[in-house]
């Protein structure tokens, strides 16, 4: 009995927002004197026109799925985890340690334990801000942002001073042994007779990311823990009434969130670079926020949004390579998408709701004795203690 069917909320609104963002982006491209049609064609062909393009699009999408899920899980507890970037960096350290110092007999075993190490390191990095929030009331947005900088500096130190191979000028670890090499899509699809670009970095982590989407969906909507996380996210006083401990939920939600962000490292560190380099995350932690916003914190939405941002990323790289359109423009487009899907949500939602109401009136004809579909919020308190409106 909500105003709109769920598919409209999950699919239609982001789609319309996206179209609006695209229109505005077109204007920007015209403004800098380029041909928008040619630009779009180049983005599409560069990102989706070949298995090479797809390989990169899916590689980026894998990163964004992990970080998007990370932000989503925290969002459900109304915690704004901006620290995905730092947690993913630490996850990279976990992967590097697991891959370099343990002789794995086979990549499958290595993948399982590297993922565990990545999740553990990411979760540990999220645990400190979570604890500060739960126990001391330190605003989690501030602390997680600061922890991104600390993580960057810490990794810098570790790579330069501790893990750099002797004689190397490059602030990076040694190459991981051949045994932990993850199969790329090329290697995975070859037995089925499907030709996939050899050079593209998409790898088996994509399947792990998709599995993570399913697991997060199960966690949030089918388990008691997920129920408690959502209840706490909607109403802190309600949680207290039901005997759901705010401290416990804050800690658990952030640990899961940090773990998911950390898991990104199995894709970029283990799957692609096969060593840990400086700034391996390349901002994927922040893109995760946009992905979660656009995906409405729903794993399926995150999955779609991650692929979209993967496309924007790869298409943008192609644009920057072959035209005079600077890569920064892609950032502009991404920002527009975030603006329309996140900040200007009601601009699209309200006319659409009115439309659905009108449609519903025509279809149903007579008025059932139903209460008003009020969109007014209960007299809620201001978001405090780092708990934000998702």
């Amino acid at each position, binding site marked *: 009995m909500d105003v709109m069917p769920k598919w409209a909320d999950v699919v239609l609104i982001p789609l319309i927002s996206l179209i609006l963002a695209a229109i505005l982006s077109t204007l920007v491209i015209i403004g800098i004197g380029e041909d928008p049609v040619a630009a779009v064609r180049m983005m599409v062909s560069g990102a989706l026109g070949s298995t090479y393009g797809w390989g990169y699009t899916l590689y980026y999408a894998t990163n964004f799925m992990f970080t998007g899920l990370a932000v989503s899980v925290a969002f459900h507890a109304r915690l704004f985890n901006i620290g995905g970037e730092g947690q993913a960096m630490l996850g990279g350290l976990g992967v590097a340690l697991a891959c370099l110092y343990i002789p794995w007999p086979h990549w499958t075993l290595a993948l399982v334990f590297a993922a565990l190490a990545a999740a553990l390191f990411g979760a540990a990095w999220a645990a400190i801000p979570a604890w500060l929030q739960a126990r001391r009331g330190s605003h989690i947005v501030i602390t997680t942002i600061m922890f991104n900088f600390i993580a960057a500096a810490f990794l810098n130190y570790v790579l330069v001073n501790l893990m750099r191979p002797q004689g190397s000028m490059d602030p990076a670890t040694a190459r991981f042994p051949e045994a932990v090499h993850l199969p790329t899509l090329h290697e995975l699809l070859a037995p089925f007779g499907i030709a996939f670009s050899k050079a593209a970095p998409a790898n088996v982590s994509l399947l792990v990311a998709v599995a993570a989407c399913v697991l997060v969906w199960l966690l949030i909507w089918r388990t008691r823990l997920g129920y408690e996380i*959502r*209840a706490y996210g909607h109403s802190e006083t*309600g949680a207290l009434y039901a005997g759901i401990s705010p401290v416990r939920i804050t800690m658990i939600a952030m640990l899961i969130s940090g773990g998911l962000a950390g898991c990104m490292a199995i894709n970029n560190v283990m799957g692609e670079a096969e060593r840990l380099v400086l700034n391996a995350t390349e901002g994927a932690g922040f893109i995760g926020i946009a992905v979660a916003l656009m995906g409405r914190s729903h794993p399926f939405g995150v999955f779609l949004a991650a692929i979209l941002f993967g496309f924007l990323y790869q298409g943008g790289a192609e644009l920057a390579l072959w035209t005079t359109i600077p890569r920064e423009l892609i950032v502009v487009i991404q920002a527009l998408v975030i603006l329309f899907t996140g900040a200007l949500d009601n601009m699209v939602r309200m006319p659409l709701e009115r439309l659905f109401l009108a449609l519903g009136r025509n279809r149903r004809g*007579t008025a059932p*004795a139903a209460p008003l579909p009020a969109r007014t919020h209960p007299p809620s308190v201001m978001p405090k203690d780092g708990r934000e409106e998702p």
Partner: protein
Amino acid sequence: MTAGGDTGRRDGAVPAIELRGISKAFGPVQANRDISIRVMPGTIHGIIGENGAGKSTLMSILYGFYRADKGEIFISGRKTDIPDSQAAIAAGIGMVFQHFKLVENFTVLENIVLGAEDGRLLKPSLAKARATLLDLAAEYGLNVDPDALIQDIGVGKQQRVEILKALYRQADILILDEPTGVLTPAEADQLFRILHRLREEGKTIILITHKLREIMDTTDTVSVMRRGEMTATVRTSETSPEQLAELMVGRKVLLRVEKAPAAPGKPVLEIENLRVIDEKGVERVKGIDLTVRAGEILGIAGVAGNGQSELLEVLGGMRAGTGTVRLNGAPLALSGAGSDGQARRARHIAHVPEDRQREGLIMEFHAWENVAFGYHRDPAYRRGLLMDNHALRRDTEAKIAKFDVRPADCWLSAKNFSGGNQQKIVVAREIERNPDLLLVGQPTRGVDIGAIEFIHKQIVALRDQGKAILLVSVELEEIFSLADRIAVMFDGHVMGERLPGETDETELGLLMAGVSGEAA
């Protein structure tokens, strides 16, 4: 039924407000259907109806928040178009909302001037406003300190500021939406004295409420709304609460629940020297002793904010306290581990909290998710690692049927149910656990009359099964109707205990005001 047949005190005069054939639909919901009403100048006109009957929609149309799909508005005989609230103010209509629209950290004077400043400079308009304000305050007996900050004055005073705001904008017609919802009985009495004064000065007042007593005590004429329609307009002096209730609900209503005398058994809840200090360090409960026996309802009366809420919250596991509390003879942890809501539920304590929207329900959750709220760890709702959502929905459907929750749709979000049906969901969830002790806070706040009757019956039925019930309510009527024993709280103390048959509202009113029992 004849809306045109009413007359105010000044027969033959032009009505201050006349609505003709107002209709308004929100999607499939017809909120107002062909409503006509005439309000004579210098009268207090009540509009009564259950939650969702369309009272607020009608007033929002009059105040320019909504536009009617059909119908006309006449102000003092002139056809008036009210597209927005500016037009309403220009037409001399002032509105006092249920939730005040004041800036907390502004002074009274600044709030009154806000939006009605003349000229670009604040200072001269403030000076002018101060003079006007003092005149108004003197004329209508609305005393407030113009320089006090809103956050420092009580709700009763804040409401006066809202009234002054309307008068400052030269309102001749005042609409008050559920004005006593946040007031203590004494503040409400003061408000009604002010309203009578305003009427004497020739102002027209529309009072929207669902409380029958306020209508009977204050209004000259009353209109009853039901399901978007105006079912009757009558002179207050020619009607009775029973008749109004019947008009509101559409059937006969028991205003007082029928119950057999209590047969109290052994003590279930024993409280000794309970103290609660809140997060600001203020002691809210100052060492109270109470006992609730099996098969009885102990009613806690008192003006809101005298420690009753904290008492319920400690017992419900929502905050920490000190002292000794025993349930069925075994001690109950009051702080630390084992004192949260889950531990309380494990001890068979059920809790209908005071604020269903912020505590008792998750407004965004479906009805079936809310039916597990607090009991979501119950093995009956579990299947392996996951929650057994099918079992939950079956359970919800049974409860919806038994408690007549409408609409009977377990997929509806809690926020889309009316207040009464929301409360029925909470009460169904808690009572159906068959608890040893039921804590109930304000069970019928903002609940329509039909649902009040139903909820009261359920509480009495639980008592008759030999369960102990602790009821906190600020409505004396409710206390008298339900309680087998009454304890009055004032400033964190229990002022005294009375039996409902051996006391009256006057005596309880004195206890609630802190006058000790022996003196009363």
